[in-house]
């Protein structure tokens, strides 16, 4: 049966290839550090299911220390760019808009696969979206190779430069998930909701609504994830005060509460896969560039959500 482990093997092999390309890059004086970094990351993908969690944990912390020490280097890319530019100006006119085809195949196959493979017996149906995404990527890669008459080695080697530009930000979402897990084990959520409820003015419904929506946004900013904040804030304020004491509508509470959390997601570097990874992917100098483009909309929407909640939740 095809499941997540098969996908992780493919990804692991790709990271291993990135590591090897780094090792042979003589323009990078720290190529050995880069090699070690991507090789360790590759190992967590290839052997993650077999290794004891303690060993994987040591590997993850090694990655963090390597990145944190600022020892990751970058190869020089000027020469590569000059030769690459030539090819671009030849390729684009020849193929025209057909160049878009492989790029659009990724979402198209992902979508088709999500529906078509839902009941297939040879795959793990729990992970059907991810399997479809990887399938779409492989199909697109194959079509691109045939259409462009290019070699897969070129694709991997070029991708390695982007991966090095992304660097440690690639690992951040997984480390944040680990932090979230430790928060959960240590009971951070309970302490926060305890603090919130002791400081709450419990007699004014409007004040409680404000505390709930703003609290959702703030706690999401700390956790980096509205899904982690939602149960804590809703159990602490939403249900006991808004629903039980003031008879608010729980469906409205849940919907708008979650959306208030999303406003927080837009404003925090802790939501790395939405905010920090794209900044790296688009080669922004400012890692907080995406957050800076988002925060005015996020704050206005938090006000909108608070007003909507105050108007709607007690009425329906």
């Amino acid at each position: 049966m095809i499941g997540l482990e098969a996908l992780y093997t493919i990804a692991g092999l790709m990271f291993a290839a990135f590591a090897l390309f780094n090792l042979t890059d003589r323009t990078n004086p720290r190529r050995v550090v880069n090699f070690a970094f991507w090789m360790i990351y590759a190992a967590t993908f290839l052997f993650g299911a077999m290794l004891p969690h303690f060993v994987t944990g040591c590997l993850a912390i090694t990655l963090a220390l390597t990145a944190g020490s600022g020892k990751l280097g970058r190869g020089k890319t000027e020469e590569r760019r000059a030769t690459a530019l030539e090819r671009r100006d030849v390729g684009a006119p020849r193929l025209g808009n057909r160049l878009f085809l492989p790029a659009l195949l990724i979402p198209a196959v992902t979508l088709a696969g999500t529906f078509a493979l839902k009941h297939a017996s040879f795959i793990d149906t729990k992970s059907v979206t991810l399997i479809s995404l990887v399938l779409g990527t492989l199909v697109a890669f194959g079509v691109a190779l045939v259409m462009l008459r290019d070699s897969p080695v070129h694709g991997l080697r070029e991708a390695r430069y982007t991966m090095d530009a992304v660097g440690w930000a690639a690992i951040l979402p997984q480390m944040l998930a680990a932090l979230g897990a430790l928060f959960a084990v240590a009971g951070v959520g309970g302490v926060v909701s305890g603090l919130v409820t002791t400081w709450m003015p419990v007699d004014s419904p409007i004040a409680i609504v404000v505390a709930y929506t703003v609290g959702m946004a703030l706690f999401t900013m700390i956790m980096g994830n509205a899904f982690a904040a939602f149960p804590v804030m809703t159990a602490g304020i939403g249900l006991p005060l808004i629903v039980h004491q003031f008879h608010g509508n729980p469906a409205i509470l849940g919907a708008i509460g979650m959306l208030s959390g999303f406003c927080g997601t837009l404003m925090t570097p802790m939501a790395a896969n939405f905010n920090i990874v794209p900044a790296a992917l688009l080669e922004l100098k400012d890692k907080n560039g995406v957050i800076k483009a988002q925060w005015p909309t996020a704050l206005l929407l938090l006000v909108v959500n608070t007003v909507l909640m105050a108007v709607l939740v007690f009425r329906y």
Partner: protein
Amino acid sequence: MLVLIGVAIVVIGFALRFNALLVVTVAGLATGLAGGLNLVDIVSAFGKAFTENRYMGLIWLTLPVIALLERNGLKEQARRMIGRVRAATAGRVLMLYFVIRQVTAAVGLTSLGGHAQMVRPLIAPMAEAAAANRHGELPEAVRQQIRANASAVDNIAVFFGEDIFIAIQSILLIKGFLEQNGIIVEPLQVSVWAIPTAIAALLIHCTRLALFDRRLARNFATPVHKDSR
């Protein structure tokens, strides 16, 4: 109270702009210690979460495809295509993507988009090219701002579109949580209440994009087209 030390480390660490990966790791270690775990358990917790969340790294598999296409002129073609559309501006390109992304997310097609699949190869180059066609070569700082805006559109449109769909993870989480607390709601009852905020998000963000266009027009002269007077 002591377990909140991790939260404090995160806030201070990010404020002082230390390496985020390092900050998060230290915060995790400190939280674990404050919570009374021993070091082996903490490191194991790291390993367990790291392993279980490997799916987050699968997005990088799209890089070789995109690298191959970019090597063969994908961005240049995106520019050429947008150059043929006289009415295109950076703001309008992003507004159109916002609407498409939000509407498709609202009917459950959240995978039709994303930073690696759509924004980096297609949307960001189109927005940049539309601005360059209007205002000539732009300074690097402005081009970075346009790219940041492209990513922001993807996030905002999907966040405030997907909750209208009844089978999305967050709606199921809300339903599940309320159920655990003895309140039964249908997914549709929850998801309709995401519609007002979705409309507000559309209006607010598209207004901001229009203002962004205005700012570009004010700061950078528009080259006059020969046949457009």
